[in-house]
C-alpha cells in the first residue's frame, strides 16, 4: 500500500514568518508539461499577495534595515554564504521545483540549480570587497582627510524575472542584500514555487527576518503600490519583462515621486527583455542600490 504523502502549503514570506495573504486569496500553480499536449499537472495553491501584503512587507523590510545595514560586511558575507550551504542541502527539492516550473530536463534543471547556488556564493563574497573596489581616499587639494565609501540605499522593491524562476531570482535578490539593503520581492507569477523554497532556505540560515520578503502573485497587481510607496528607496524592474499587464514606464513614472533609484528592465526602447542570467553579472546590479558617502576631516597638529 503506497503512503499518502504530506503536501506543503505554499505561503508568503514576510518579516521572517510565513503568513498566508491577508486577503486569504490563492491561485493555482501548474507544472509546465514535459511534452506538448499533455495536461498541465496541478502543483499547489500559492498565496496571491495583495496591496496590504506588499505594505506589510515594506514595513518588515524597513524594520530590518538598520540591523542588516549595520552588520559588519564579514558577518553579512558569512550569513549569505550560509544561505548557499542550505540551498545545496535542498538541492533535490530545488531541482524538482525548477523542472516543474520551467519544464527542463533533469540534467538542465541540475545545471540551473548549480548555477543558482554558485551565483549566491559569488555575491556573498562581494560583501567585504565592495567598499575597497568602489570607495577610497580622495586626494583633495588641501589639508583634509577625504574618503568615499558605498552605503546601501535602503528598502529595495524587486520584480523578479518571470521565466528564470531560480537562477534569475537569486541573481536579482543577492545583489540587493549583499551590501546591506533589504528587499521586497515580487516573484514570478506562474513559477513562484522555487521562490518559496528559497524563502525556506533564508528562514533557516541566519538571515534576519525582514531582510528578504517574498510575495507570490501578480506584478500587475502589486508592483504599482511598491513603485509609488514613499518608504521604498529603489526598484528593480527586471521582472516587468513578460509580466502580463505591467508597464515599466508607468512604474518608473510612479517611482519618480520620491526619486527612487530605478533599475530598468533589459532590452531597448520601450521593450523589456529578460536578461540572460547565465552570464557573469555586471557590478551595476549592485551599484544600482548603493549611495556614495564622502567624509571630510581637516588634518593638523
Amino acid at each position, binding site marked *: 500500500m503506497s503512503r499518502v504523502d504530506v503536501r506543503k502549503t505554499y505561503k508568503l514570506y514576510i518579516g521572517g514568518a510565513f503568513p498566508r495573504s491577508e486577503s486569504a486569496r490563492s491561485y493555482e500553480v501548474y507544472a509546465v508539461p514535459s511534452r506538448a499536449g499533455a495536461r498541465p499537472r496541478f502543483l499547489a495553491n500559492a498565496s496571491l499577495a495583495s496591496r496590504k501584503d506588499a505594505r506589510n512587507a515594506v514595513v518588515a523590510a524597513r524594520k530590518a534595515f538598520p540591523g542588516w545595514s549595520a552588520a559588519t560586511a564579514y558577518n553579512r558575507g558569512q550569513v549569505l554564504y550560509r544561505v548557499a550551504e542550505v540551498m545545496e542541502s535542498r538541492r533535490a527539492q530545488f531541482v524538482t521545483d525548477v523542472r516543474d516550473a520551467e519544464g527542463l530536463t533533469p540534467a538542465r534543471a541540475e545545471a540551473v540549480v548549480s548555477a543558482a547556488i554558485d551565483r549566491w556564493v559569488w555575491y556573498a563574497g562581494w560583501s567585504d570587497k565592495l567598499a575597497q573596489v568602489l570607495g577610497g581616499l580622495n*586626494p583633495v587639494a588641501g589639508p583634509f582627510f577625504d574618503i568615499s565609501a558605498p552605503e546601501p*540605499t535602503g528598502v529595495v522593491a524587486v520584480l523578479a524575472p518571470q521565466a528564470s524562476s531560480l537562477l534569475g531570482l537569486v541573481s536579482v535578490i543577492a545583489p540587493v542584500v549583499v551590501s546591506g539593503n533589504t528587499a521586497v520581492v515580487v516573484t514570478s507569477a506562474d513559477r513562484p514555487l522555487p521562490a518559496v523554497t528559497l524563502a525556506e532556505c533564508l528562514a533557516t540560515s541566519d538571515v534576519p527576518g525582514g531582510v528578504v520578503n517574498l510575495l507570490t502573485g501578480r506584478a500587475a497587481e502589486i508592483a504599482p503600490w511598491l513603485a509609488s510607496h514613499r518608504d521604498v528607496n529603489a526598484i528593480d524592474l527586471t521582472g516587468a519583462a513578460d509580466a502580463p499587464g505591467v508597464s515599466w514606464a508607468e512604474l518608473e513614472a510612479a517611482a519618480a515621486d520620491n526619486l527612487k533609484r530605478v533599475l530598468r528592465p533589459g532590452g531597448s526602447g520601450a521593450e523589456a527583455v529578460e*536578461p540572460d542570467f547565465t552570464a557573469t553579472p555586471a*557590478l551595476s546590479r549592485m551599484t544600482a542600490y548603493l549611495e*556614495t558617502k564622502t567624509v*571630510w576631516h581637516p588634518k593638523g597638529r
Partner: protein
Amino acid sequence: MPTFDYAPAPESRSVVTLAPSYDLFINGEFVDASGGTPFATINPATEETLAMVAEASAADVDRAVKAARTAYTRVWSRMSGADRGKYLYRIARLLQERSREFAVLETLDNGKPIKETRDVDVPLAAAHFFYHAGWADKLEYATLGANPRPYGVVGQVIPWNFPLLMLAWKIAPALACGNTVVLKPAETTPLTALLFAEICQQAELPPGVVNIVTGAGATGQAIVDHPGIDKLAFTGSTAVGKMIAHAIAGTRKKATLELGGKAANIIFDDAPIDQAIEGIVSGIFFNQGQVCCAGSRLLVQESIAEEVVRRFKRRLETLRVGDPLDKNTDVGAINSARQLARITELAAVGEAEGAVRWDTGCPLPKNGFWFRPTVFTEVSQSHRIAQEEIFGPVLSVLTFRTPGEAVAKANNTPYGLSAGVWTEKGSRILWMADQLRAGVIWANTFNRFDPTSPFGGYKESGYGREGGRHGLEAYVRTEVSA
C-alpha cells in the same frame, strides 16, 4: 567693541567687456535664435541691465542637439582619449589665464562676493577641467565596468548659484568620457557660460562638442524632451528633478540629478567652538546661503546652545554685507527678485510659526536684492523653516541632548545631501558619519569641494555623483548587466 571702517576696495570692472546682446552658441559659433524673445540679464546688486540674451526655442535646441550628434559621431567619439584630454587641459589653462575676467563677470551677473568667485568658483572650475582631462585616456582603469563607452549627446541644465562651477562639473566629465553636450545655463546667470563658449573657440574645440543654449524653463524642457538626448544631467530644485525623472520614465534616457538639501550642522559640547562658529558662518552665509548643501539647520547640544548662539550673533555683527565687487565684502546680493521674495516669505512664515527672528540690522544698499544674515532660534522640527529649503542666508537653530537625538533630528528630512559634525571626539565623528543619511559629511569643517571628491545626495536630494572616479559613472555606459 570699537568699530573699524573699511575704505572701499572695489575690484575693477574694466577687465570685462560686455556686449549689448548675446546669441546662442551652436556648432562652434554664435548664431541668432529663431523666434524666442530675448531677455535681460541684470546685476542683482544694482538692478542694472548687463546685456540682452537670446531665448532658445525648441527649434534652436533641436539645432544644438543635431550639432552635438554630428560632432559626436564624426569627431569626438572617434578621437583618442589622449587627444580629448589635451583639449580639456587647454580649457583648464584658458580658464586660469582669464580667471579675473570670469570672476568679475560672475560677480556682476550673480551678485556673489568677488572674494568667492576669485578664490572658489573660478579656480575650482579650472581644477575640474584639469582633473578630468587626465581621466580621458584612463577610463578603463576607473572600475566603471567592462568596456566603458560614452552615451552620446548629453543635455545639461544648471542653476544660477554657481554658474561657471556647475558648468565645469557638468561639461568636464561629459567631455572626458567622450560625450558631446548641449548645456543651458540659468536665465538669471548666462554670461559666464557664454564667455566659456569663447574659451571653447580659443581652445579650438571641434565645433558642436559644446553647445550653449540660453533660456528659461521652456528651453530646459525642450532639452529634457528631445529624443536625440541620451543622457540628462540636472542641478536644481527637487521639484524640477522629479519632473525630469517623470518625463524620462519609460525611455532609455539616463539622468543624474543634483537637487535640494536641508543640511544639519551638528555642534557637540566638546566642539572647538571658535572653529565651529566659523563653520556655521561659512555653512549658511557662503554664497548668501544659496547653496544646496548649505548648513541651514544648526543642531547644537543643549548645554552650549546659549553660548554658541551668543558668539554666533557677535560674529554676524562683523560680516560685511554690500557691494559684491568690494574685496572686503562677505555677503553679497540675492540672485534675483524672485529668490528674494521666496526668502522673505519663508522668513515671515518662521516668525508667524513662533520662532524668534534676529538679524544685525546692518544697512543695506538701496538698489538690488538684499537680505540680512538672519538667525531663528526656538525653532522646532515641525516649523517650515526647519523642513523646507530656504536657499538664502537664514539659519534655523534647534537643540539636542544626546547623539542619538542629533542623528534622529538630522535625518528627519526627505533630503540627504550633506551634514556637518563638530566634536573633538574622533570615535563620535566616525559614528555620526555612519549614522547620517547624507552624501557628504563635513567633520570639523564645512562647504569643502574638490574635483577628486564625489558630491551628491541620498533620498530626495537626487541621484548620481559629481566629481572623483564616481562622477565618471554618470557619463559612460558599460556592458548590459545580467
